[in-house]
């Protein structure tokens, strides 16, 4: 096994192409055979080499012809439903790969933001040194809030429902009533978040007062309004 990465394009060199064809054709036949055995199903392969006109087939001419007639006897719809050629197959693969890429990027972003959060904890008051834009701040705020929720839940567990102070009590009550609604914040328009941020009228829980106009994370205790517990648009689960 060479394990060298092969470029997904026609091999220009005749000898290399021939060698590759020989190996891969053998491997392909083996895979068809394994699929058939392991899953107890019928399968066949027809391969026309670019070098000569005689096809190579698996398992045998008789079986192949039998399967082909079986295939042709199926309604056209059934035949074409799961039929692909290079074009459609590659498009499927591309779509799948893009999905994976999206997921991985989202994951990485979450990790990056968490990193920023931890950094922000140790450089108190110097958050600005990290040069964050609105998007980053939004995500950061969300992650901080998620962590706070988790902490409150955990604290509730540890306290075994005993007397908790008012703030964590409110938050704990909220977390439990909310369950695991991770995606509920998404619909929020960012404007609302900022509005809440700047509007001291809504800040009536007695949490952070004075010059801090930031809303208390769990709002005014009403979970009826969607915005009260989810100030930060959910960046992770659109």
């Amino acid at each position: 096994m060479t394990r060298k990465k092969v470029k997904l394009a026609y091999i220009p060199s005749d000898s290399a192409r021939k060698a590759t064809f020989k190996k891969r054709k053998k491997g392909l036949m083996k895979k068809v055979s394994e699929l058939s055995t392991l899953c107890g199903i019928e399968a066949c392969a027809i391969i026309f080499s670019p070098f000569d006109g005689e096809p190579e087939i698996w398992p045998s001419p008789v079986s192949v012809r039998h399967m082909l007639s079986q295939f042709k006897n199926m309604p056209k719809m059934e035949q074409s439903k799961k039929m692909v050629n290079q074009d459609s197959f590659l498009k499927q693969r591309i779509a799948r790969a893009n999905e994976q890429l999206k997921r991985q990027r989202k994951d990485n972003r979450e990790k990056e933001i968490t990193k920023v959060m931890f950094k922000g904890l140790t450089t108190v008051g110097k958050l600005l040194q990290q040069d964050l834009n609105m998007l980053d701040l939004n995500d950061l705020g969300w992650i901080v809030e998620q962590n706070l929720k988790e902490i409150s839940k955990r604290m509730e567990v540890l306290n075994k429902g005993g007397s908790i102070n008012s703030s964590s009590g409110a938050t704990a009550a909220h977390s439990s009533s909310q369950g695991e609604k991770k995606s509920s914040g998404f619909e929020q328009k960012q404007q609302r978040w900022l509005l809440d941020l700047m509007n001291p009228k809504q800040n009536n829980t007695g949490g952070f007062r004075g010059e801090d106009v930031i809303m208390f994370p769990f709002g005014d205790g009403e979970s009826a309004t969607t915005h009260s517990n989810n100030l930060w648009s959910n960046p992770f689960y659109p």
Partner: protein
Amino acid sequence: MTRKNKGRQKVEMVKMPNESNLQVTFSKRRSGLFKKASELCTLCGAEVAIIVFSPGKKVFSFGHPCVESVVERFLTRNPPQISGTMQLIEAHRNASVRELNMQLTQVLNQLEVEKKRGEELNQMRKASQAQCWWEAPIEELNLPQLEQLKMSLEELKKSVGKQAEKILIQNSNPPPQFFPGSSSNGGINLPFDHHAKNNTGFNPNMMPHGYNNNPGFGRGFY
């Protein structure tokens, strides 16, 4: 360390005893088979047809240039027709496939980059966990630690809010000179307009991949 699967295991060449495993195996292996066939066609210019009947009696098939033509070629034992039109169609098709292969390669490469980055980030987190107790998973912290962490996070949250407010204010105040005829938007940036000129002096992005090029504010990660 969480593993997604057990890794490569040797499998006995008999029909799989477990029904659901069999289904999964069929699904995965069929997909892999088509992938190999596709590669054979691309790399060597072979013409291939593969027909597979599923455990559920459905039929899956792959063919290049297409299942019908390869099947016909096999059944009729005719050499492939090489008419002028056919050649043109063939050429078009091959060009399209070339494009798609390039696209696929590109996406796969990007995916690999991101996966590596993910691993890197995991390592970094592990390393810093050794030194900073607060970076450990929340389940591992005791009550006083949780209290302390909670307070710090709430402080941080305030900072974040303040910082956001600051940026907002900076953005909504036009700079001293206002040139109505200039190509810029006159210095007035709408708060959530990521395409506006950066005249507030903050870094466009600390994150790789230019996330602030995404339209739509609330998405954050896309």
